[in-house]
């Protein structure tokens, strides 16, 4: 384990894993898309629009899963001071925001034909929106603080504060919703879901997960390189020859 603290070892690991996850992702998404678009039946109520579910639900799951990943990375940063945890945190945030955005837009595109409006202030929708805002805050914090080490620690603290808050927000928003019982009468998700719809959904979900893992590894690799570059150009700015650069193994 200690080995992977060393970025070079991690980069080597990435080189081994990357083809596997990338291949897996392509396969899963291809099969998933085929099943979702051509095999799965249209819903007897919703018609073709139900096919949006195969994007919407996996991205909703990913929105939460990525936050979970970031929370663990934040603990890694603050408690174990693992250098790779910083990198993992930073690389995950934009991906999480992208999946949340996808959940919001696909949901919105689903909502227009279903409810006749692009947006309602429904409990689940608003919780996701708040989660999206938290992601944006995290990204902004990353961008604004110069020193990567300091940024990592501060963002980790905020991520944990957010992690404590997200369940509270969810609970309050649900409570708020029951309080107001808005006019729109709809329920997301039926009680049961036919197997013919479940399989495409699960395959898409696994595909999204491997997609995230692949992109996360790539983004972490970028971040490691970015830090290396930063260090070297700092050395160069000091007028010293960046000797380390020759010693670093090429990718």
């Amino acid at each position, binding site marked *: 384990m200690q080995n992977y603290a060393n970025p070079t070892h991690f980069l080597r690991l990435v080189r081994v894993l990357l083809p596997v996850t990338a291949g897996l992702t392509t396969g899963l998404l291809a099969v998933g898309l085929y099943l979702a678009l051509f095999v799965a039946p249209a819903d007897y109520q919703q018609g073709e629009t139900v096919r949006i579910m195969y994007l919407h639900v996996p991205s909703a799951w990913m929105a939460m899963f990525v936050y979970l990943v970031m929370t663990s990375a934040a603990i890694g940063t603050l408690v174990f001071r693992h250098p790779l945890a910083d990198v993992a945190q930073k690389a995950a945030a934009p991906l999480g925001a992208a999946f949340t955005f996808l959940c919001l837009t696909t949901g919105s595109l689903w909502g227009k034909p279903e409810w006749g409006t692009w947006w309602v202030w429904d409990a689940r929708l608003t919780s996701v929106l*708040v989660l999206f805002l938290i992601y944006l805050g995290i990204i902004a914090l990353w961008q604004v603080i110069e020193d990567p080490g*300091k940024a990592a620690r501060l963002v980790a*603290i905020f991520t944990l504060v957010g992690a404590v808050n997200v369940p*509270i927000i969810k609970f*309050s928003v649900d409570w708020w919703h029951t*309080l107001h019982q808005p006019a729109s009468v709809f329920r997301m998700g039926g009680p049961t879901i036919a197997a013919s719809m479940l399989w495409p959904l699960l395959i898409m979900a696994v595909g999204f997960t491997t997609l995230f893992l692949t992109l996360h590894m790539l983004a972490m690799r970028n971040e490691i390189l970015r830090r290396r570059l930063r260090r070297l150009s700092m050395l160069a700015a000091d007028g010293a020859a960046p000797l380390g650069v020759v010693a670093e193994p090429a990718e």
Partner: protein
Amino acid sequence: MSQKPQAEKRQAAIQTRRSPLAALLVRDLRIGRRIGGAVSMGVVFFLCLVTVTPFAVGPDQALLARIGPAILWIAALLATLLGLDRLFQADAEDGSLDLFLMSETPLELIVVVKCLGHWLLTGLPLVAASPIFGLMLGLEPAALARVTASLLAGTPALTLLGAVGAALTVSLRRGGLLLAVLILPLSVPVLIFGVAAAGDPVVGFKTPFLILCGLTLAAVALTPFAAAAALRHAGD
């Protein structure tokens, strides 16, 4: 500034014997009183919001009374945010924060006391003014009492949450907007239960008010650790 060497010196001597936290509170209140700053800004901002809403909603008294608590709560939330970014920043810039870090007093307590000072300067005047503003919005006496009580119970939580944002943005010179962006999503629960306690006739007062108090207590218990941790790590 007035020249009263005798009185001042005596006062200073008294202050020396004070506990660190009491001294900090006195200092912050004194600075707030002399400079003005965020204090008055909060209340006047509050007033602006209350003034402008009737123009937006139209002179429908019933409607105004219905969304009155919501307006007061949003105004309180926003007024708290104004100027909060300087809570620790001023201390960081002039080097006081270094000395806080080097004192024996735990930083967590220092954070709590600074929040208390800020709340006394901005939150409390706001709570005190809310019945008047509520009256302007045409709230019933019962509703007035509920709004005031809910603001009294809830605004400390807003300040404490804001303090986390202030600590996170302490090294950024224009952290105001970022602070708001970080903190607004987190303040959703306080807002929901605050407004509910203040004005919802269906649920009644007690349940949301108790939850609101619970949220504030949780904020008192947890946020100082987050803010102190952020302040410790921000020093570079």
